[in-house]
């Protein structure tokens, strides 16, 4: 038996994202951010996007290109403090930002990827983050119902992939990629190296290829992937 080949050209993979799409973007800071996919999404000029990403990258990097290009209507995130452009757009009212506790964002995405509708938690139940959320009382404790998150598309960055879409990440680049790769209708992964099935040992696979629809090989890594001197 031979596993199907999902390798796709960059332009073709990103062309599958429609205007108005909800897009999950992996990464926490630089590690795991799919800069090439984001750059192509900027180039193709898709509009009215909802992005789900842990952070807003930094000025001039990653999703900042989409934010400052006016392509994003709404951002679901945990921390945007390292990108002053994102803070300014939010303060100006041109970007709607929904803040979520970081581990709860991860768990909402995991739930979406695991076929669950919501999770129940005490995190933030006695803070402003509880506003507008359904409540539940269990064993005398006030809890929040946090809805599961799914997206139309997830954009993933892997260190290595095979053509079936099995993915492996490096160091702190796993972050949100693992959960997001399970939580979207169409999953597009970019990989620094792409080989035939078998190039990754089964034990080395972090995201099984069945979750991945398209895998894009990066011919080179742009400046954005490198060490940032602040």
């Amino acid at each position, binding site marked *: 038996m031979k596993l199907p080949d999902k390798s796709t050209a960059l332009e073709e993979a990103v062309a599958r994202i429609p205007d108005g799409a909800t897009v999950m973007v992996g990464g*926490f800071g630089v590690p795991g951010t799919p800069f090439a996919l984001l750059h192509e999404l900027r180039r193709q000029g898709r509009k009215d996007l909802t992005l789900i990403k842990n952070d807003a990258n930094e000025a001039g990097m990653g999703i900042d290109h989409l934010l400052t290009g006016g392509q994003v209507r709404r951002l679901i995130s*945990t*921390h945007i*403090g390292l990108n002053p452009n994102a803070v300014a757009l939010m*303060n100006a009212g041109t970007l709607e930002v929904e803040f979520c506790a*970081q581990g*709860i964002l991860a768990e909402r995405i995991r739930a979406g990827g695991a076929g669950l509708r919501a999770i129940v938690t005490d995190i933030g139940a006695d803070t402003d983050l509880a506003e507008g959320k359904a409540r539940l009382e269990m064993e005398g404790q006030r809890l929040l119902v946090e809805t599961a998150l799914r997206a139309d598309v997830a954009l993933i960055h892997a260190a290595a992939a095979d053509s079936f879409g099995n993915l492996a990440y490096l160091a702190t680049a796993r*972050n949100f990629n693992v959960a997001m790769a399970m939580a979207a209708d169409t999953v597009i992964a970019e990989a620094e190296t792409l080989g035939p099935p078998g190039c990754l040992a089964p034990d080395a696979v972090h995201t099984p290829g069945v979750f991945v629809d398209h895998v894009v090989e990066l011919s080179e890594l742009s400046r954005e992937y490198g060490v940032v001197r602040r």
Partner: protein
Amino acid sequence: MALSDVEPKKPGGADPRARMIARAAREIAPGMVVNLGIGLPTRVVDYLPADMPACLHTENGMTGIGPTRPYETADRNLIDAGGAYISTVPGSAYFDSVVSFALVRSGRLDLTMLGAFEVARNGDLANWKIPGRFSPGAGGAIELAQKARRVVVMTTHTDRKGNPKLLERCTLPLTARGHVARIFTDLAVVDVTPQGFVLRELAQGISAAQVAGATGAPLHIPDTDIPIF
């Protein structure tokens, strides 16, 4: 990865901020699992003795943090939650964000050290939102503050305009209610107790009266010798 090329910083020196960080580093005891929050707290890692048997966690997906690395030897895939380039120690582990917060919410952290905009005398913490001005978001701070077994704060005693950050009541949206146990500042170590703020230690050259004057709520000053750091 060997760490022989990265030496821990010596405690002390004239810089009050460095003294504060060095003092806060002594809060970490052998055997602890510790998360250091974005900002000043992450710098604690560089003040720990190399032979300290403790495990540092960073919420972006790693346990076993070693000292920060200079840009020249940085690994582009290896950062802490604040974006600083860090190193591994023998026994480090990587994992994704789901696992990282399973560790936090299930109570595996003995200690977390967080930054603050405001701390109240009842242990309330505000560190994620200044409405209309600067709302960076809480990142992992809500879960860290709510679920770590001990929550301490490291912050300058006053803001840039000289206004106190230790208050009777927080005025900003809260990160967590009633979880802060201790505050390390450039002026003092202050405990949060059922009676309110209690002065425990003083920074070199600082008087108890100065600390009380820079604190926005009553400060109890014990009638004993106050250690100096």
